[in-house]
């Protein structure tokens, strides 16, 4: 204890000695305070209810998220597939066969030998040979020769000519 607390104690002993003597410690009956149950029960119930409702909401939202996740996954799959299909189409457009066919249709021909142009001096390196239509490639592959069972010889059926009406008339005469 600190010193300021000691002062009142000595003063009490001096001034109210009688009262202190009177105030003997005696055993008194214990007072049982019955805490009101209702608020506590309400609190517990509320906590329980909130917990259950919360859990339910949490579960529902998880389910919801699961639905969203799978629909997004589906969407991602579809988009990935679409991207792949587009990439495949692009690759097919880049097919040298197609590019060459288009280019040749525009009149372009692959030369038989390259010639280089030096941009600084403006001179060409290499033999300048004319590139003509004859340098064009035969781009169409030869038609496949089908096996005999897929390309049977044409069946020729000789039908006796039906006599025309004039012939018939002549015969009748």
């Amino acid at each position: 204890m600190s010193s300021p607390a000691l002062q009142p104690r000595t003063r009490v002993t001096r001034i109210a000695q009688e009262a202190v003597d009177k105030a003997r410690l005696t055993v008194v009956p214990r007072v049982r305070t019955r805490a009101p149950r209702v608020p506590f029960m309400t609190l517990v119930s509320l906590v329980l209810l909130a917990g259950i409702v919360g859990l339910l909401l949490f579960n529902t939202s998880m389910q919801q998220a699961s639905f969203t996740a799978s629909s997004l996954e589906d969407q991602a799959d579809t988009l990935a597939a679409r991207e792949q299909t587009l990439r495949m189409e692009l690759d097919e457009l880049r097919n040298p066969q197609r590019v060459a066919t288009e280019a040749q249709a525009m009149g372009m021909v692959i030369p038989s030998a390259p010639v280089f142009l030096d941009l600084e001096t403006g001179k060409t390196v290499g033999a300048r040979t004319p590139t003509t239509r004859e340098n064009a490639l035969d781009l169409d592959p030869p038609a496949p020769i089908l096996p005999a069972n897929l390309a049977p010889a044409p069946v020729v059926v000789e039908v006796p000519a039906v006599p025309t009406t004039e012939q018939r008339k002549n015969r009748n005469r």
Partner: protein
Amino acid sequence: MPSTRTTGRRGASRGAPLLRLRVGFLLIAVVLSFFGARLVQLQGVDPQSYALRAAAEGGVRVTLEAERGDILDRNGVPLADSIKGKMVIADPSLTADRATELAQLLSERLSIDYFKALTALRGRKEGSRYEYVARRVPSTLASDTLAELDAAGFTGISLQDDPIRDYPSGDVAANLLGYMGTDEPLGGFERTFDKQLAGVDGEATWQSNSGKGVRIPLRESTLKAAQNGQPLRTTIDRDLQWFTQKVLAQAVQQYKAESGAAVVLDTRTGEVLALADVPTFDANAPTEARSEDDLGSRAMSDTYEPGSVQKVLTAASLIDAGKAFPRQRFKVPPNLARQDRVIGDWFDHGTIRLTLAGIIAKSSNIGTVLAADAFSPVELVQYLRAFGLGQRTDVGVRGETPGILTAGEAMTSQTKDRVAFGQSLSVNVLQMAAAVNTIANGGVRVSPSVIAGSAVTDDGVTVGTDVATRTRVVSKQAARGTAKMMEKVVDPEDGVAPRAQVPGYLVAGKTGTAQRVNPETGLYDSTSLSFGGFAPADDARFTVYVVVHAPKVDGGGGSVAGPVFSRIMGYVLGRYGVEPTNGTPSRLPVEW
């Protein structure tokens, strides 16, 4: 407490509550004992089967398909790639009733055969619940079609993953790439490197309530991710490969030949930039191939006698061994009687005086035999083996033939004479190209490779540029001397193949017109026309080798294979920006 409150009535009706209590306890005990018994039954008797049934009830098990690795060209352009696809599956018990309507719709949307679709929808067998209607349908098309069917009220059609292998350039390099069967690779790189390309499928399991794949959160789920296949990078240049195939196909068609092959090699690295086979097939539709033989690579699997191109190997070996030199003089008689038969030349001549360069330029068999007399069979074969003949190149192409080269000890002198000018031994196309490339590369043989980096074949052999080897076969001087002689071959005045020239460039090459054995009859009844060479001759960058088998139109290596060589060489030089070297042309004399 309620009990204190009821104390007043306890005495009056003591029997009833006790009875009630006892009855109640008994009932509870009975119920609990049922629970207990059920618990023992579930956990004690056969817990596994119940767990399985529970899992099967709402469990979803999905195989996560590993994506097959792409096959790329040297610039990363896909030669083969995989895209997501679906298989369309019908449950005939649901589809049989409206099969005709469904079949019509499906055949229109998916471009499949109506009658096949109809058979599948009705069920191929009685009571069938699972029939393939279409396989390898692009994913987007399949799901769009399914959505349309759903909207129209059809049931019983479902989709499953079924990846599609696509070859965007069709027949480009098809003979090397191979193709896919319904479920497995059936040839080419697809099969040889399947382990690398295939990857490992993964698996996912989860609990679902609706059967539509929606997961129940917080329930047991497992995920083993798929390991996608690794891409395979080749040394092939797609555009060059395409060009080579087209030019070769044109020649094969023009000369009504049976088949043809062409190889483009990077001289310094031995990388195969193009390896063309004609006839070929569309890798997207292997079943439409003209014949089963077209599916593999004839260039690698068929042997043939190389003919006169071989002479450059003989000449280079002779020069390297110090037994000949380019200006060496030979008197070449009209024909040469050797032990069992007479050797002749392709052109009629009296006794002519040719140098070794002239023998190469004019492609004289007799001259070559005379020059090769300085060699014993053992010596010649030793050199040819070093050039790579008689053994597989092992580049990773399936079904490669080692060719036939008789061992030197067992070789008679007559056989040696014929081997010297390229008959009585057989090779595959890449072997021969690599041998010619050795001359181009200053006498150092670089083993050819088709795979960039390295890859392991299904036989466990590591192949690729990483494991390419270099061995000196002939000296640099011998190789230069031979190249100078080969320049004379395309000389308009002295040579036999002026049409193999590439305007503006120095070209060295050699023609070959060999007698060819018909594999069916075993008789020499046709020819193999070839041309092998490199450019620029004084600083070679590319080696091109072309062979055309069994043409029905008359011609020689110079007139048939020469122009093909010229066209391919001209294109590859331009494509890789190789300028003419302005070197001095060979001034070797051909006659004396």
